[in-house]
């Protein structure tokens, strides 16, 4: 499904500010995998996601989705096969456009945009039906400007937009990190539900160990630009936060001191 081969990303190469964000990363996702990607600040997890999404060009290696090499494809072209939700709720939606207009943009992802009307009446039924799944009451506010919604509502809407056209790969980049704990849990539960119902291949970056263990069928841990742990299926089901801390210490030879990762 997703095949990442020896991907390296170096920021500001050959300058004093050179920073090797990720180095020689190789991993594969199977169809239907729900993978949580965890790591401390600066471990390279967001960079990896952005390299897959095409935000940054890679310095070496290749990214292949379903046999299609997308390594050098422009960001907007990749979005045909990718659904993305960002950390910042502001990033995923157009604030000055209505809820239905945002959904209409998402519905046309990967299609040629022409001079036909931006939203058809038929679509509105689909949007209402889909918004009902969020149970936030947004189905009765189709015309409301997205800028008037709360962070949690916007993130839920972005999630819906990312999955409205079934993506081959769903990328969630710490999409609950900017929300309050209760809203974060709601959005996570919703993500899990949508992913399971549609059997979406998903890569979810998170800061939170509990969430990384609770959700998905596979866990990857990054440290200093490398994947240092890969825990799957049965093994993952039995995993606890304590196990993860011990195994991190074994692999990296360091004490895990990043408080943010220990949160909750």
């Amino acid at each position, binding site marked *: 499904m997703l095949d990442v081969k020896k991907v390296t990303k170096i920021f500001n190469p050959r300058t004093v500010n050179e920073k090797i964000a990720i180095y020689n990363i190789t991993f594969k996702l199977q169809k239907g995998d729900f993978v949580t990607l965890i790591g401390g600040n600066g471990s390279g997890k967001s960079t990896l996601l952005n390299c897959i999404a095409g935000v940054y060009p890679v310095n070496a290696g290749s990214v292949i989705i379903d046999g299609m090499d997308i390594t050098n494809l422009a960001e907007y072209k990749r*979005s045909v096969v990718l659904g993305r939700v960002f950390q910042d709720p502001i990033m995923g939606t157009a604030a000055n*456009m209505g809820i239905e207009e945002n959904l*209409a*943009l998402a519905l046309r992802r990967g299609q040629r945009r022409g001079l036909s009307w931006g939203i058809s009446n038929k679509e509105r039924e689909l949007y209402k039906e889909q918004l009902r799944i969020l149970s936030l009451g947004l189905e009765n506010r189709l015309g409301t400007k997205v800028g008037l919604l709360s962070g949690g509502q916007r993130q839920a809407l972005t999630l819906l937009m990312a999955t409205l056209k079934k993506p081959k790969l769903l990328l969630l980049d710490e999409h609950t990190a900017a929300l309050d704990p209760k809203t974060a849990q709601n959005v996570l539960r919703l993500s899990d539900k949508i992913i399971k119902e549609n059997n979406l291949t998903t890569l979810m970056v998170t800061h939170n160990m509990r969430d990384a263990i609770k959700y998905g069928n596979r866990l990857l841990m990054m440290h200093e630009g490398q994947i240092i742990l890969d825990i799957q299926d049965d093994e993952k089901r039995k995993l606890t936060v304590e196990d993860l801390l011990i195994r991190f210490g074994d692999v990296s030879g360091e004490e895990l001191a990043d408080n943010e990762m220990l949160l909750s």
Partner: protein
Amino acid sequence: MLQILSGALSLGLLWAIVTIGVYLTYRILSIADLTVEGSIVTGAAIAAVAITRGINPYLAIGLAFLGGLVAGLITGLLHTKLKIPSLLAGILTLIGLYSINLRIMGRANISLLRVNTVYTFFENLGLDHTMSVIVIGLTFVLSLTGILYWFFGTEIGCAIRATGDNPQMARAQGINTNNTIILGLMISNGLVSIGGALIAQSQSFADIQMGIGAIVIGLASVIIGEVLFGKRNFYSRLISLMLGAITYRVIIALVLKLGMPANDLKLFTAITVAIALSLPVFRSYFITLKKSLKKGE
């Protein structure tokens, strides 16, 4: 007095088209596009040359529109493909257009006296010049408003709006933001050129200097329109732009009437726009001031 007001109304209607062009880049694409100062002259120059050569005035306006599209295309390519900041890209095109406009006209100004313009038809029907300009201006503004209202509701139009609103999100939804920015700049400058062509015909000459300050006048009209006439939805916004452009002209006519020297007009406009643009800063300053005063009690 009535004569002054109807003069301001006629000029305001023609400048409303320029204002709509400025609005498309400034508000919808979030780009302050200085190309406008050159493309308004390009429109005037093309129309003037075409009309003096005996080409139908309406066709001449069509040619002016094409000229504006090209001007916008150049700024768009400089900005998106060559990654030049939008402000600088606009300035580069504007400077280049100065020479191109001189080339088009062959000299610094062209007189349009005693030739048939778009206004001639109504003047022959017995309307005076100002009334003819009002009729033509209103027709153009309303039909362009209608076309734009339709266009920005289409899939492409929505993609342009999304690009200005949140380019990151637009790319994530598969929109080629380079193309939408170029298209937006083209349409904007095409409209500005139409405005230039109509203005030149109404004042009976095209002049290489006529674009100076056009962007500021456009911005002033946009802001006046938004403040006085609201910005609820897209349609009402387009109408407020027209009303804003007219109001600006009325204000100018009044201050001139009150005795301000015409040479100080640009300074007056610049100060007005600077104040209008900085209103949010003053507003937040006053809010904090009020709060701290309340605490002091």
